[in-house]
């Protein structure tokens, strides 16, 4: 049910129904102050006025939650896709990310982005290299991150004209050259090898229906690998740390962004209830993920003793549907009206805490618009995308209805999404976003669209 909107503004703090948890400073605090605790303290003080309704964020409902200003954020995103001033020079090698971040965020806000199809096609075409893959810009080297962002952007605008830009055969060769003897993927030829590479490569392979056999010239063949996913799950398993979280590569510090990449990758190479427990210590991982959420802020942090940041709404928040699927397995009898536990505790994390943080602290409600890390930071396309993805994920429940019979038939797990209706709904129903697939982070029908197109293509 939509929460009633109060027009009283910021003055009547006491009028809002805000649980104590999101109003009070933490109950257990150490006396010893260090840089980390001082920064944490500052962040709490920075967020509290936004959470309490002391900061003027326009009308709030009786839960003290401001509206999601969709038009303002859409305007911001449209501008980010338009001509950019020279100050964006540093973004020269990462422009495809801007396409993805903006198009994905606009889609979540309910905008039809097919309008951008021609422009996108003409922009990315010269960024594709004849030797396979897409670069950050013309004349640059192909990179897994920019290729991933480009493929997702093409899927978002949809249509054959967009899909046909991709040269799948050279892509196959190029991906083969990135696959390493230890099972992982380099981001670019000669580039770094990390969990992002594993995730980006598996998404690309899955959406483009790339043959799973490695090309003959792949360096991984020397180590006995014959397929793209051979040894990949084990390599990801090595990235779990003593804390339970996942690091960029083996033996580094656990980090939220890599946790999502690891789970996403594992959910592609097989159904999550099989592949995730097979390669990771699931209980330790769940505990670590859960401890990323802080109160009173409500948002997630990326590492132990680091600060909340809106983008982890996706990197950590987006892990939950995959974790739930790996705990519960396929829900064959699942119907949309199926009963879930009655309290908010039916979720492994506090959805309302996250929603509070996002709507109160992550919206830039100035003329600029867009979403941000925290109130003291500027909004940008990256945070807009991942904050909104996290919001959508908190507002919906994704259930894996049936699992593939054969691990190699990618994308055949059946996922079903329903609005999350348990417990108290603290946001206005108008602010419920569109849905985004828990593995591909684009709407399900967009992922299906591109995959079906290539699944029907015989050979390259």
């Amino acid at each position, binding site marked *: 049910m939509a929460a009633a909107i109060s027009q009283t503004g910021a003055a009547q703090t006491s009028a809002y129904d805000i649980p104590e948890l999101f109003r009070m400073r933490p109950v257990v605090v150490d006396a010893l102050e260090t840089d980390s605790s001082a920064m944490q303290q500052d962040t709490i003080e920075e967020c509290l006025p936004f959470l309490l309704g002391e900061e003027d964020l326009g009308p709030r409902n009786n839960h003290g939650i401001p509206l999601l200003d969709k038009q303002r954020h859409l305007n911001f995103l449209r501008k*980010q896709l338009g001509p950019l001033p020279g100050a964006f020079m540093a973004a020269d090698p990462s422009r495809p990310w801007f396409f993805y971040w903006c198009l994905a965020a606009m889609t979540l806000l309910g905008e039809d982005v097919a309008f951008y199809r021609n422009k996108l096609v003409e922009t990315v075409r010269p960024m594709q290299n004849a030797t396979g893959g897409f670069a950050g810009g013309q004349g640059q080297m192909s990179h897994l991150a920019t290729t991933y962002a480009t493929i997702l952007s093409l899927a978002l605008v949809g249509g054959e004209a967009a899909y046909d830009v991709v040269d799948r055969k050279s892509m196959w060769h190029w991906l083969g050259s990135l696959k390493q003897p230890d099972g992982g993927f380099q981001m670019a030829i000669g580039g770094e090898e990390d969990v992002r590479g594993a995730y980006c490569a598996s998404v690309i392979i899955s959406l483009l229906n790339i043959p799973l056999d490695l090309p003959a010239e792949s360096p991984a063949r020397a180590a006995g690998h014959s397929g793209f996913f051979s040894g990949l799950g084990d390599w990801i398993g090595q990235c779990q740390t003593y804390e339970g979280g996942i690091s960029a590569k083996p033996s580094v510090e656990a980090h939220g962004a890599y946790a999502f990449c690891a789970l996403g990758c594992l959910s592609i190479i097989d159904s999550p209830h099989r592949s995730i427990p097979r390669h990771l210590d699931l209980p330790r991982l769940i505990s670590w993920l859960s401890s990323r959420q802080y109160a009173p802020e409500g948002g997630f942090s990326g590492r132990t003793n680091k600060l909340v940041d809106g983008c982890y709404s996706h990197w950590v928040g987006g892990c939950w549907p995959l974790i739930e699927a790996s705990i519960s397995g396929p829900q064959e009898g699942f119907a949309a009206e199926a009963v879930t536990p009655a309290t908010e505790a039916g979720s492994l994390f506090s959805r309302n805490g996250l929603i509070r943080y996002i709507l109160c602290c992550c919206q830039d409600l100035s003329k600029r618009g867009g979403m941000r890390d925290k109130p003291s930071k500027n909004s940008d396309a990256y945070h807009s995308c991942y904050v909104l993805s996290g919001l959508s994920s908190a507002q919906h429940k994704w259930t894996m209805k049936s699992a593939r019979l054969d691990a190699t038939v990618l994308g055949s797990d059946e996922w079903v999404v329903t609005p999350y209706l348990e417990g108290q709904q603290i946001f206005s129903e108008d602010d419920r976003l569109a849905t985004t697939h828990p593995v591909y982070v684009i709407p399900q029908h967009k992922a299906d669209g591109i995959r079906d197109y290539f699944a029907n293509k015989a050979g390259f």
Partner: protein
Amino acid sequence: MPPKKVPQKTGKLDPVWAKPEDLKKPETVGERTQQRINLSTPYHGKDLNDLTADELKIYSHTNLIKPISEGKISLSVKAEREFWKVVNKEKLPIRHVRDNYDWGKDKNGKDIASYTIEELNQRKVKQARYRALSLFSRQFVHLRDQAKRQGAELAETQIEDERKRRREMAALKKDLYGELTAKLVQDPVYDDIIPIPMEEPENALARIAYPDFYAEAISYLRAVMVAEEYTPRCLRITEHVISMNPAHYTVWLYRFKIIQVLDLPIPDEIEWLNEVALNNLKNYQIWHHRQLLLDYYYPKIADDEDAVKKLAKSEIDFVNQILAEDTKNYHVWSYRQDIVAKLGIWTVAELGSTQNMIEDDVRNNSAWSHRFYLVFSDPSQSTKDASPTEHDPKVPESIIERELKYTRDKILLSPQNQSSWNYLRGVLRKAGRGMSTEEGFASQFAECLGEEGEKVTSSHALEMLADASVETGDAEKATLCFTRLAKTWDPIREGYWQYRISQLKEQ
């Protein structure tokens, strides 16, 4: 006899139609132009009915001779003689200054017409200097081409002169027109490179208005990359691009290739890289580049124990310098782990240096993570490639005890610090010990649980007590701990604690 009036040769003969304001010394260029217009077009702008017969004659004659003096009509010899007679007699102006003459604006948007005469003259001198320099510059190119055809090259001094010349031209251009000359065209070394500019459709998405100097550098970079050229001048182009945009991953990979092909001394490259790293703390391409350099360099010195030690020391020193500024920099810590493994820095000093960072901030989780790596991946006291979450029987008991003691001390210092609790759990895993072995220690942070006067000074201790109870099969105690966490001590994780309780029931 009165002295004969000698016509002044130097002074101007003021025409009869000159107004006083046309004869005073002009202050600005615009004023001078206006005077010239007035003097060369008698009575312009005046109502013809107001003119006297003489004035009217001058006026109409001026207009009559115009087509002739401008050469639009050619006359016979006789007629021309007649023409000049009239012109001289009436002192008619022959040259006509065009009306509405636009001097244009300078680089600051200032009207050149508002310049003083002196200022204009200075500008003209600069323009002339620029023209002369470009003449020499063209000559240089010509000479060089000629030399090339004969299989020769110009002397370095000639090239250096040209370099200076182009720099001066660039400075003049900036001074005169505010135009920035891109950097690479100022150096004749790059003359034979045909840059490949980026060609984007007008309506390209997120099209960036690259500053000219960046666009130039990128177009040269692209040209040499396409040509697969790996020469010192290419190295300089990469340096130039990196100085503007260190996030440009392609330029780094290309730079590494050049270093390999030219077999350049790695210590020099590292020294250069230090400077770049200090100026770009958040950039991670730098650290991948550094790792590539080390991978490439290490085999060359692997047999020289002293050289390896020296390198290890200088690398750790530099890493420490960066971490002092940015204590949790993910890529720097990651690099540190790489070099520990590669250069075998499993030393007391390394442990000590990590320890110092934990002393500075006991909540620095990156430092704790590094410690875990140093202790439990040291090949002399651990199983190769053992998973961080698994029991490793090869780790000596003394090490386990040392780590447990160290961690407990740090927990006592700051009980609600998750870094040290996570570390404690990690050590117990490695030791193959259960959580219940630390139950006694953890209990001191959670007193009178579920009773009057309940006091919890660490929610992490309570979580450990819960896990210890799960281990020992004490579901009741575990439920109590989880419930207390959910209700009071860590309620943001209520969903998780409830899930743990629901798992107890399943068992």
